């Protein structure tokens, strides 16, 4: 029995490593390509480690673009839109989780259905609204679009976490005289923190990587890292190595954030609030 258990554990570990490496490989390949010359980046068969290592792509990217300007915009847009989304989503999810009506389920489905429409379908109306309100290439405008775009997901995630909190605990607090505000702040929030943390992280990542609205509604002032990456793709000329260097720089901050918060992220995504 013990031998079987060890064998199973070893098999699972090897399998997990294979899956992990398969998922990680494209990122590794991108990082390696960023240190190649353009000719090496296109070479067939591809060169894995034995190529002429160079930093020239990073130097050129630094020289051509204002990386920190775009990175700052990405930070403002992703965290800004997430915070605004939380302000709306926490009360909404709280209401639907603890005071459901017969239409709660349909409301949730309707909210999610807005994510099913291709964004390009509303590009022109949104563009016209932005033009008339003077919000083209503004951080505020993009925060609004990203917040509204991700709101259904945030509400759904929080609703799932809140639903797992036993209502008895809240009722006990009410018996002790807790108001709705105190109930949310002192009872609900501490219990839902892992869920809220993972929702925040996921939403930040989604907003960070959003590349349709950020490309179409900005030019320079509010342009985040997605536009920075897009400027390195070319139809005529070799660009893979420079594009890889730009992409590595673009994902570096979010990778670091993900690395340090992976424990909370995994816990929030795999466990409920009170398990």
């Amino acid at each position, binding site marked *: 029995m013990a031998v079987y258990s060890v064998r199973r554990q070893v098999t699972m570990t090897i399998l997990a490593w294979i899956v992990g490496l398969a998922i990680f490989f494209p990122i590794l390949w991108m990082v390696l390509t960023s240190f190649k010359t*353009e*000719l090496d980046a*296109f*070479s*067939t068969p591809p060169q894995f480690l034995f190529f002429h290592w160079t930093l020239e792509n990073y130097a050129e990217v630094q020289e*051509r673009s204002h990386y920190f300007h775009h990175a700052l915009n990405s930070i403002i847009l992703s965290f800004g839109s997430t915070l605004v989304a939380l302000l709306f989503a926490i009360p909404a999810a709280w209401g639907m989780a603890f005071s459901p009506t017969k239409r709660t389920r349909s409301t949730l489905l309707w909210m999610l259905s807005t994510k099913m429409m291709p964004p390009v379908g509303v*590009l*022109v109306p949104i*563009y*016209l609204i932005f*033009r008339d309100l003077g919000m*083209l*290439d503004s951080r505020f405008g993009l925060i609004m679009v990203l917040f509204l775009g991700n709101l259904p997901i945030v509400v759904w995630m929080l609703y799932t976490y809140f639903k797992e909190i036993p209502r008895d605990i809240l009722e006990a607090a009410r018996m002790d005289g807790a108001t709705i505000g105190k109930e949310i702040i002192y009872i609900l929030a501490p219990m839902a923190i892992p869920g809220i943390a993972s929702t925040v992280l996921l939403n930040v990542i989604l907003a960070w990587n959003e590349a349709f609205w950020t*490309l*179409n509604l900005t*030019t*320079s002032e509010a*342009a985040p890292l997605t*536009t920075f990456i*897009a*400027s*390195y*793709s*070319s*139809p*005529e*000329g*070799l*660009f893979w190595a420079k594009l890889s260097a730009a992409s590595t720089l673009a994902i570096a901050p979010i990778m670091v954030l993900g690395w340090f918060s992976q424990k909370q992220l995994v816990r929030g995504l795999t466990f409920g609030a009170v398990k």
Partner: protein
Amino acid sequence: MKKTLGTLAGVAAIALSAHASAETTLTIATVNNGDMIRMQKLTDDFTSKNPDIKLNWVTLEENVLRQKVTTDIATKGGQFDVLTIGTYEVPIWAKKGWLVPLDKLEADATYDAGDIMPAIRTAVSYDKKLYAAPFYGESSMIMYRTDLFKKAGLTMPEKPTWDFIRDAAAKITDKAHETYGICLRGKAGWGENIALITTVANAFGARWFNEEWKPEFDGPEWKNALSFYVDMMKNSGPPGASANGFNENLALFNAGKCGMWIDATVAASFVTNPKDSKVAADVGFAHAPCEVTCKGANWLWAWNLAIPAGSQKTEAAEKFIGWATSKDYLALVASKEGWANVPPGTRTSLYENADYLTAAPFALPTLDAINSADPVDSTAKPKPYVGVQFAAIPEFQGIGTTVGQQFSAALAGSSTVDQALEQAQQSTLREMTKAGYIK
């Protein structure tokens, strides 16, 4: 004392506000390619001559830029003051009133619009008015390996036929050593495989539409052209050719894996650059292949600078365009980066410059290719559209990409040539009827 200080502060404020209001910021949308990036690096020359104008660059990939700029111009968003657009867009957008005519520039003797190559000038004009200024122009031509030709006992004719190219490609091909006789575009897209295949079809006597705008994929000319292209690529082309575009073929050619490559003349400077190409010393150039006709055998394209109708800064924008597309700009690039790196294919005087002709071995073949391309008369039979490798109608982007997918599938082997042509005929007929061209 207080009064004096107050007066001084007032004067300073007025001076500062006057300065602030005098400064104009131009937002320029451009594509990411070598010549455009070089221009961005050289803009100090412009700003030092025009200290009241600040430049704000938005560089994007071609398709992203096209979508973004089209949205902005169609909605009069006014996000851009100068646009980089292709020869496909210029006549369509000019007709819609989306572009500002460059009258001042055209009339400016020092700018010398008469020096712009005639074929390019026609391509960027509408109703005999200049609506965009060409930044660089290109046609298509054959780039081939002189060493492989010599080894195979072949001599490239000045104006080869597609039959010669097919036979030469078969002779050069050595699949065991990963040497392929011919590399051509196969990746689906109106600006990818369709550009190349349309020139093949033109040479075989085909056209996209007859005089009544009815597509002609059901005719013998298209069948001959597409069958020829698919057979030749299957016999002598690299594996996975249906996924290859300009960049993939450039990489293959530079790595010494292609005997011939027929593509944009702008590639000539890349394949002869020893820094990027392993075969830089063994590259020859020839006119794009003809077959039953030479009309439309080589394409014509230019990236141009234009002013959108929504811009409030047309005067400054025209000043910038005048600088970027002038003879002086070419001299500036030459002084900083050498004559081989100046943007090619726009001005006749460049091809009369002995320094340029010495530095750029591809200069005369490029000039010959551009001069021989005629967007108006590019097919053996008469046609109702303008454009060599495209039809300058708004619907062509969508139609061309759909047809490109069908042709790419035929090359990949997932459909036959007959099936691809039949589907192309059906889908194009449907779109053209829907758009009102066919009554």
